[in-house]
């Protein structure tokens, strides 16, 4: 622990050590400079430890011959600029930027005109867009330089009120984009301002030491507490296992578990992935992963913006206990056709953006895996583990008689049989979005998402030669098919009634489907021609449908009050079947329910205080009860850049995903509607408080949280096939001779999660990144498991993360390191035997305390290098080499147990070892 704290402090001190840009007027230049502008600037930067960037590549080759005589560097650069028609300025990050003065100021959407304003009025409103593609940018920051600001809404619109008199400059800031200064003289129509900002270019000149801003992650201090924003475009610079994965990116953030390697799901502040509301263009996604949970289902090429609310989220969101992920899909390039694609060792990914006129834009992105090295490695990991798990029931002690012996169905002699496996597994996802802007006040968009996994590990055993020669044919098809996914769509109409009132109305449909087929069919044809068909195994089928309609309104009442209110109606239909032997439906659940929710909240700004009280009221038809959820967010500016933040709220969950006992069967989880009786409505309470300090280049925060959980459910389903005839010798059961017993248990309990998160981030510059440390505890209390509290399966006491990225010439380098305390597990601690009437004995294990032991600590180091270049001299491209788990740490995924000579033998099943990956990405623009 001490080592960890020492390490953490060292890293903080390293981050605090910043580049100290000298005042240019204090630097004297007094020598001959000859060569290109590029070489001269390189020389000056070396002499004076400065950083600079040439924004227009053509000016880098301008010839310079100058001998300044005891001039300040500032004077010398002004002289150069005048002679060579250049512009230069010192950026927000202290870097000197040079550009071509003769070029039009492309970013100034509203050129300086005679009608340009002398200063900003007290209120302006408009939209923030991407300069290259014309896409509206959600949740961008627009602020008075050095003063207060606002953020754009989900459609990119903003209204900035209470602008101080005399304000001439505004700043527009968005993650992954250059900071833009907008002067009043560029604005002619303050109620319809269009601000375009430029994404950070990867095609940098070689002399560039740094760019204006290189943020990969932003911890929002503008808007809401415990919010993290990730730049999908910048994900490419991070190491990956095979895919640029948004959810894997979040796992590098403080408060989100990074040690659940086999799952891309988000364990946020002690919550489980199902307690996380995932909204994609306004509709709920119930299935968020691919390949047993290893990859998230979201294609980063189709995502424009991602926000994660780790807790204390406001009244606009509801229906989940822990957190919210809000994904906004790209509208597509509104100016030019663009196509592109990526190919990695895991999948191929293509997209197309097609605008039609200036009112319609579209984007279609498709990704599909192929059975390459990484896919097979992960697929086999799960299936080998599944098989070994099936075989690895705790072995019984000496003298024990198990079930059918090796003389059984697939006992010892099938070595004569021909066994074939059917490798036909893949995943795909499709994102499409069509946006139509009939007027400047209306946006209509249709968004479609479909992600599906088709996992097949079936086997066929055909007639062995010994039987074929006797005229008996035999084949045994054992299915092991899992098909699951999500289909969702939303149709949204956004309307701007005035610069004070904005609305979004949306109808959506979302379907989650999951089918697991483990049916085994044996066909035997005897030499007398009599066919026999025997079926065994099970089929699970879960289908959830969500029909929703919602309207959200934003009303900028005055400079101090922004009111949000809205209404949401959801109809859920959930079906779950468990069919034994293709014939007997042992479970057949059909539930439906309606949820109506209304919310209202006011963002109140009073001086240095911003407070957002709100309430969300839910009515759930199944229980016919009303659930009231008060919420409160608070931000207090204590000193310049120094804030106190706090939040509290009550949350309920009205659809629950229950986990099957076998953690390997990621797909066998299923969704159910609570009934208020043996499946109650879960609820949680959040309390959060913290301090943060932000400068131009750094961000520091400490945040504590406490979350109580009530009426949480764990589920157990055990189906026992009980042959009643003809099976005693281990031979095949006769048809119809099997009955099933279902033992279905819902265990109801409570829990709590608490923790403290520390973070230090360097936000800008060639080098940026962060270090974070989380101290946390998650406890559960289920009477069925223990009379006392016990650590939840996701309880991780200490978690430490480092993320470093560095840009050098055309390369982006990154390295991440994660350390986490091992997760808890339950192990057998003793055993006993019971004598049966035939004189044999059966052995049983005494299970130790629930989650009473810990896996070894988890740690992992990943690196990546990305080369940015232009294919065929024109196409922006990147080649990325990434290595996961560089030092091949054998992190333990789970334990298998066996008892040998009355001693417990634990076998570690490990996670992925060192895994390299190569990704090539090419874009038209």
């Amino acid at each position, binding site marked *: 622990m001490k080592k960890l704290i020492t390490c953490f402090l060292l890293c903080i001190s390293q981050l605090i050590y910043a580049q100290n840009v000298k005042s240019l007027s204090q630097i004297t230049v007094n020598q001959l400079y000859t060569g290109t502008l590029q070489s001269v600037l390189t020389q000056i930067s070396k002499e004076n430890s400065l950083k600079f960037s040439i924004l227009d590549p053509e000016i880098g080759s301008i010839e310079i011959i100058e001998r300044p005589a005891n001039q300040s560097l500032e004077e010398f650069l002004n002289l150069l600029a005048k002679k060579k028609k250049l512009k230069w300025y010192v950026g927000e990050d202290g870097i000197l930027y040079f550009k071509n003065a003769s070029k039009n100021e492309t970013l100034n959407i509203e050129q300086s005109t005679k009608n340009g304003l002398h200063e900003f009025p007290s209120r302006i409103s408009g939209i923030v867009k991407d300069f290259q593609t014309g896409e509206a940018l959600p949740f961008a920051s627009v602020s008075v330089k050095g003063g207060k600001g606002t953020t754009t809404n989900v459609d990119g619109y903003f209204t900035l009120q209470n602008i101080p008199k005399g304000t001439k400059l505004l700043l527009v800031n968005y993650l992954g984009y250059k900071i833009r200064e907008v002067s009043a003289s560029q604005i002619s129509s303050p109620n319809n301002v269009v601000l375009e900002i430029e994404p950070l270019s990867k095609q940098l000149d070689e002399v560039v030491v740094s760019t204006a801003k290189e943020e990969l992650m932003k911890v929002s201090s503008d808007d809401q507490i415990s919010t993290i924003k990730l730049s999908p475009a910048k994900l490419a610079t991070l190491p990956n296992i095979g895919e640029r994965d948004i959810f894997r990116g979040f796992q590098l953030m403080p408060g989100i578990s990074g040690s659940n390697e086999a799952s891309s799901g988000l364990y946020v502040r002690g919550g489980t992935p199902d307690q996380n509301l995932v909204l994609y263009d306004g509709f709920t996604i119930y299935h968020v992963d691919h390949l047993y949970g290893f990859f998230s289902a979201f294609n980063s090429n189709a995502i424009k913006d991602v926000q994660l609310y780790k807790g204390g989220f406001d009244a606009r969101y509801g229906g989940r206990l822990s957190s919210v992920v809000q994904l906004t899909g790209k509208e597509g390039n509104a100016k030019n056709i663009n196509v592109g694609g990526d190919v990695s060792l895991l999948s191929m990914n293509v997209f197309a953006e097609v605008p039609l006129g200036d009112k319609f834009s579209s984007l279609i992105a498709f990704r599909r895996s192929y059975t390459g090295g990484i896919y097979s490695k992960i697929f086999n990991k799960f299936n080998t583990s599944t098989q070994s798990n099936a075989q690895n029931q705790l072995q019984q002690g000496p003298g024990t008689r198990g079930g059918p012996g090796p003389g059984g169905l697939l006992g010892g002699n099938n070595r004569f049989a021909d066994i074939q496996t059917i490798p036909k597994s893949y995943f795909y996802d499709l994102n499409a979005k069509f946006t139509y802007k009939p007027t400047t006040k209306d946006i209509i968009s249709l968004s479609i998402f479909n992600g599906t996994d088709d996992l097949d590990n079936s086997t066929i055993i055909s007639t062995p030669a010994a039987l074929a020669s006797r005229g008996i044919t035999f084949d045994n098809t054992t299915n092991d098919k899992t098909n699951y996914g999500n289909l969702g769509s939303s149709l949204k109409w956004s309307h701007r009634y005035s610069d004070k009132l904005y609305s979004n109305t949306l109808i959506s449909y979302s379907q989650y489907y999951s089918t697991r087929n483990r049916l085994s069919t044996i066909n035997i044809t005897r030499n007398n021609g009599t066919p026999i068909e025997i079926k065994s195994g099970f089929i699970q089928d879960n289908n959830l449908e969500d029909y929703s309609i919602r309207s959200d309104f934003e009303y900028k009442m005055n400079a101090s009050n922004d009111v949000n209110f809205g209404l949401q109606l959801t109809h859920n239909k959930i079906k779950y079947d468990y069919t034994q032997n293709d014939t007997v439906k042992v479970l057949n659940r059909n539930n439906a329910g309606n949820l109506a929710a209304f919310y209202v909240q006011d963002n109140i700004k009073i001086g240095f205080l911003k407070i957002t009280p709100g309430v969300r009221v839910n009515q759930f038809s199944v229980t016919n009860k009303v659930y009231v959820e008060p919420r409160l967010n608070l931000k207090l500016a204590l000193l310049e850049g120094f804030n106190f933040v706090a939040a509290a709220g009550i949350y309920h969950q009205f659809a629950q995903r229950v986990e099957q*006992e076998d953690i390997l069967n990621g797909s066998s989880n299923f969704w159910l509607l609570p009934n208020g009786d043996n499946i109650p409505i879960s609820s949680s309470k959040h309390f959060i408080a913290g301090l943060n300090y932000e400068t131009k280049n750094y961000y520091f925060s400490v945040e504590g949280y406490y979350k109580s959980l009530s009426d949480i459910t764990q589920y157990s389903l055990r189906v026992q096939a009980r042959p009643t005839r003809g099976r005693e010798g281990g031979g095949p059961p006769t048809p119809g001779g099997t*009955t099933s017993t279902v033992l279905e248990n819902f265990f109801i309990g409570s829990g709590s999660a608490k923790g403290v998160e520390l973070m230090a981030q360097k936000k800008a510059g060639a080098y940026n990144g962060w270090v974070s440390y989380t101290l946390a505890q998650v406890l559960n209390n289920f009477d069925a498991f*223990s009379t006392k509290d016990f650590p939840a399966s996701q309880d991780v006491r200490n978690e430490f993360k480092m993320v470093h990225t560095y840009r050098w010439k055309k390369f982006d380098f990154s390295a991440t390191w994660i350390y986490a305390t091992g997760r808890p597990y339950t192990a057998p*601690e003793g055993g*006993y035997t019971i004598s049966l009437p035939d004189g044999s004995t059966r052995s*049983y294990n005494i*299970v130790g305390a629930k989650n009473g032991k810990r896996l070894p600590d988890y740690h992992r180091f990943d690196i990546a290098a990305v080369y940015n270049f232009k294919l065929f001299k024109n196409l922006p491209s990147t080649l990325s080499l990434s290595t996961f788990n560089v030092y091949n740490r054998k992190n333990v995924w789970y334990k298998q147990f066996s008892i040998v000579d*009355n001693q417990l033998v634990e076998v570690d099943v490990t996670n992925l070892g060192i895994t390299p990956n190569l990704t090539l990405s090419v874009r038209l623009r």
Partner: protein
Amino acid sequence: MLNYFTEMKKSYIILTISFLATIMSCKKVEFDVTNLNKPTVDGIVFANQNPKIHLTLPIGYGDDATSQTTIDNAQVSMEIAGIKYILTSTGNGDYINDKVKLKAGQELNLTILYAGYTVTASTIVPTKPKNFQTSASQIQVITQQGGFGMGGGFNQTPATTISWDNDTQEYYALLTSNTEATPEPIAGGGGRGGEMNVPLAKRLSQPTQTNSQNLNQRQFSFYGKHDLILFKVNAEYTNLYNNRGQSSLNLTNPPTNITNGFGIFTAMNADTLKIQVVK
């Protein structure tokens, strides 16, 4: 006014630090510990026999011991149909009362005092199976060459059916037991089991709620005379026998009807038929 705000800001910082300190000052949480000092009851008793149980301590997997330690110093009593009887130790963990025999329908309440633990359990002696009968008195074995390892399942003799009354879907288990002094094994016969896959002279079926069962040659390892013993068993035995919940990934303790201990206390009642396995 300025002082007021400064003080207010200070108070927020103090508030935050207090909140964080409260969270971080994790009080020691007491978790469950496994107690391997409680007795294990191996107590299957039979109608028309003396009550007899076997007491041991569970084996700890971290211990050096290779077998369970027997308990010979416990105080064991059994209330049978309302009358309390003492079971005395005969050594090796066994306790018996040879003065009383159990009868169908009796309620049994077991009490064990050991090392400060009071261990209790209850069961009821089931009634004897009714109308237990067989469709034939012998089963003929047809041997075949080059068996597939399917237990010779394709050339069986017609099944012999055994049946009994079971209108109320009670649980029954069948024991087949060879009674020959020197039994002759069936070449390639079924009925194997155990770790070494050896032919078994006795085989016990899993509990079933049906009222009949087919017998064929694959359920026998030896030729000769066999007893067919049909046990009527209780739910606690069925639950324990069928327990398959101890997978590596989600361990749960096996079901037990013992309070403050491990194991099982249950009663059975049986009827017996004879059958001959012939060549």
